[in-house]
């Protein structure tokens, strides 16, 4: 099938690469600042395991091309996919306008971008009106296909999805989409067909539910500390209840990333603009902001409310492992809090230091170092913000030798409190370790 994908961020590129890999002729077109030359040369806007190889291979085999001219994409496409970041609604609008003005054939427009509920309907109405004004009789429909990709495992998420949600009222469009997605829907039928609005809302609802679950788990863990309980034991008890399950039960120092919190926030804003409210979600969001400082608060109490001149080593800056981005990451907020109290920071991250340097606006005390042990040199405490694999089993002896004081604040609970204490560390996790 001939497919055009508009938007060359994570979602667009993964979609384009995966569709090309199964034999489609795919043209990918950037909508923002990403440049075609960069894409052709393999310079990607975001690092994602396996993505660069996949795109290079598909280009080499002639099934994937990058193109700047939007009209060429339209001329090429039987299926046209909109995959802009959620904050580039303006570009999507412009694209819909172009399609309305120029299209002369039947076309399925698929929206993967996370736009407010009702957007797909609105796009379709807009297209129909434009066609009618031109006296064009071809059939153009809009399908909502929310993306459920997670950074770090996006390709796998696309190729072996838990489910594929398709929103459309057009049977012929659904038939076409089923055919396009057939290679990714083999073992059991994972496609859920619903109205476009329900599809759009599902995406928000998933993020809202996960965010709420994380925040609630964090709150339960924080409070377990007050009862002198190791939350890990409670987690086992909770997860084994089949109604609850083990997923998303780890407490930590808050969630981040470019879209997760942003989607929940945009749902709240969307509802508020309509005159409704979402009290629980607002609390979830503000709880999470508070949770980003949970390790700061522990250190604040540990050092008796005076962090002036205290040196803090930080392991991990990205909002989760295997990604290079610090957008909305707890690390940024925590480091800002430390710096404002006059603490000095030495930080290490395997991938996200460049992005951190770009996001960091402020105090000069942050020193980025190029290996994890350098971040421990003469520090009064270690703060772990991201659970990169290499942090799980470090050289304890070397750590103790390097650090002024063997104190660990662990925002991801990657150590066993008893073991690490027996190594001579003071250890403070989230819902685990010493109470403070």
């Amino acid at each position: 099938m001939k497919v055009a994908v508009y938007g060359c961020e994570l979602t667009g590129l993964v979609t384009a690469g995966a569709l090309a890999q199964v034999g489609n002729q795919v043209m990918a077109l950037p909508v923002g600042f990403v440049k075609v030359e960069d894409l052709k040369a393999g310079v990607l806007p975001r690092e994602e395991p396996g993505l660069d190889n996949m795109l290079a291979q598909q280009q080499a085999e002639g099934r994937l091309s990058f193109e700047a001219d939007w009209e060429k994409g339209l001329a090429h496409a039987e299926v046209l996919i909109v995959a802009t970041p959620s904050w580039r609604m303006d570009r999507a609008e412009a694209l819909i306008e172009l399609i309305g003005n120029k299209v002369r054939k039947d076309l399925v427009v698929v929206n993967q971008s996370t736009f407010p509920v009702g957007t797909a309907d609105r796009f379709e109405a807009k297209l129909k009106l434009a066609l009618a004004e031109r006296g064009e009789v071809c059939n153009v429909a809009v399908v909502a296909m929310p993306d459920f990709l997670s950074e770090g495992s996006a390709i796998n998420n696309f190729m072996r999805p838990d489910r594929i949600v398709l929103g459309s009222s057009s049977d012929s469009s659904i038939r076409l989409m089923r055919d396009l997605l057939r290679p990714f829907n083999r073992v059991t039928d994972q496609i859920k067909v619903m109205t476009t609005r329900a599809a759009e809302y599902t995406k928000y609802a998933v993020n809202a539910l996960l965010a709420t679950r994380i925040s609630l788990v964090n709150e339960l863990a924080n409070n377990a500390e007050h009862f002198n309980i190791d939350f890990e034991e409670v987690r086992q008890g909770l997860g084994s209840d089949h109604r609850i399950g083990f997923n998303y039960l780890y407490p930590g120092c808050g969630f981040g990333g470019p879209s997760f919190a942003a989607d929940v926030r945009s749902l709240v804003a969307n509802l508020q603009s309509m005159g409704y409210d979402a009290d629980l979600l607002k609390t979830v969001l503000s709880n999470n902001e508070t949770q980003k400082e949970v390790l700061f608060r522990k250190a604040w109490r540990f050092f008796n409310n005076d962090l002036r001149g205290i040196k803090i080593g930080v392991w991990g800056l990205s909002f989760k492992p295997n990604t290079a981005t610090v957008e909305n990451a707890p690390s940024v907020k925590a480091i800002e809090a430390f710096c404002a109290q006059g603490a000095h920071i030495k930080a290490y991250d395997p991938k996200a230091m460049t992005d951190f340097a770009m996001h960091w606006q402020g105090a000069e005390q942050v020193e980025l170092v190029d290996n994890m042990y350098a971040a421990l040199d003469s520090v009064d405490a270690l703060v772990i913000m991201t659970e990169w694999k290499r942090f799980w089993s470090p050289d304890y002896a070397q750590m103790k030798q390097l650090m002024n004081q063997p104190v660990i604040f662990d925002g991801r609970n990657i150590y066993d409190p008893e073991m690490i204490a027996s190594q001579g560390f003071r250890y403070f996790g989230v819902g685990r370790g010493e109470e403070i």
Partner: protein
Amino acid sequence: MAVNQSAAWQALKVLAESGVAEKHLQDWFAADPDRAKRYAIELDELYLDFSKNRIDDQVIAGLLALAEQQDLSGWIKRLLTGDEVNDTEGRPALHTALRSLNAANVSGFAAEVQPDVEFQFAKMAKIVSKIRAGHWRGYSGKPITDVVNIGVGGSDLGPLMITHALQVQKSPVRLHFISSIDGTQTSNLLKTLNQETTLFVLASKSFTTIDTLSNAETAKDWLEERIERPQTLMAQHFIGVSTRPDKMAEWGIPEENQLLFWDWVGGRYSMWSAIGFPIALKVGMKGFYQMLDGANVMDEHFARAPLAQNIPVIMGLIDVWNINFLNIQAKAILPYDARLKYLPSYFEQLVMESNGKAVNRAGEKVSYKTCPILWGEVGPNAQHAFYQLLHQGTQGVMSDFIVPVERDDFELHSGAEKDASLLKQHHLALANCFAQSRVLMLGDAAIPESLKSSFDSPFKHYAGNQPSNTIMLKNLSAKTLGMLVALYEHKTYVESVIWEINPFDQWGVELGKLIAKEAYACLVDNESVESFDASTQALMKRVK
């Protein structure tokens, strides 16, 4: 010689008795429609219309002669350069020095204090930005979200009035004010706050004020319910603002959390100092400086404009004319903007605590009226309360109408229905303001010809002839509020110079405090009430 025996005073008296005092405002305007233009002064973003007063060129000339005779210009200079104008307490009254930062033309003691002022403002700026950025932490490490100002009188009214007036500006922390000694405010407020995220500001010039310290003790007890380390409690949850670092230290406030001002700043003139800390929390240090700048514009004007064109001088002299020659003993402060709700209380303290005195600088009892009774209320609300008395009562009352011309708290041309309605409401408020001052002035003459017959009843007559000023501010901003308050400070000083009294002391409030101590001892320590009068004894016995 007492001022009321002086030539200039006597000349005004003769003038008043020559028929001027009897003349009705409607006749003044009929004879001289041009007066509205002549009797108005504009300064930057403030416009004063004083034409609705029972004055003419002759009266003004007489008042200016009185001012010259009293050496008003000399007194203004002495005030602004830091002479000991507060002679009963042997110190200057240099609130103007707090707002002349970067002003090259201060001299005398006013110039000497500048480095101290700058140092304290720099310290205040640091604390303010830390709190506003969410980096001032409570004991548990959470950012402070609520700041409670504990202070009374000058340590309360100014910040309360200004922060309320600037309510539309978004503030990153919530502000609360506790003043009353009885504990009701404290008890109610504490129920709504969390120890983790609450910071108290103890604002007391002397740091001995029982009202403030008793509320502070309650706050401390409340914090102690959660906070074990006394150092943390003080370092993270209390900031002190006072002239007495020793007393603050004694109470436990660490040096880093002490903001100082000086005994040359009177309590009711202190919102320009670190007492204005809540204002800076509300609008940022930038906004605080804008307020100081606004006041400085008025100070410069007061210092330099010729007396006849000098807004505080003219307003002060007209008050003197009304009080001493037209026998008006009440003044209403009538802001036509609900954001100025606390302005009347603020001016009540400023004016009555300054000039509510009957002894001149030489210690002699005066034989003329001084400060009138001053009160007020948001105008449109007062219209449904005490305006009846203004229109048909037996008291002469002079009024100051205060109103912003524009509003910046909603979007004028947003197209939203709500904003269109708000604009309509603003115009309604302005219309009411103009209508009231017109009716107070003209009385029956304001009744339209076509409606005259329906007002033909002894109960529907309006005497009119009540004088008023109208002060228009471009809008309600830190700057215009600074100008407005400085105007009233200086106007109050002008009157004190004419009346030869010291506006900067307040001995009248001391005795009550002393007796309260005795009474308190009787109530709680079972001391004998015998030394009290029969009435007070009876009252106390009902408590014991």
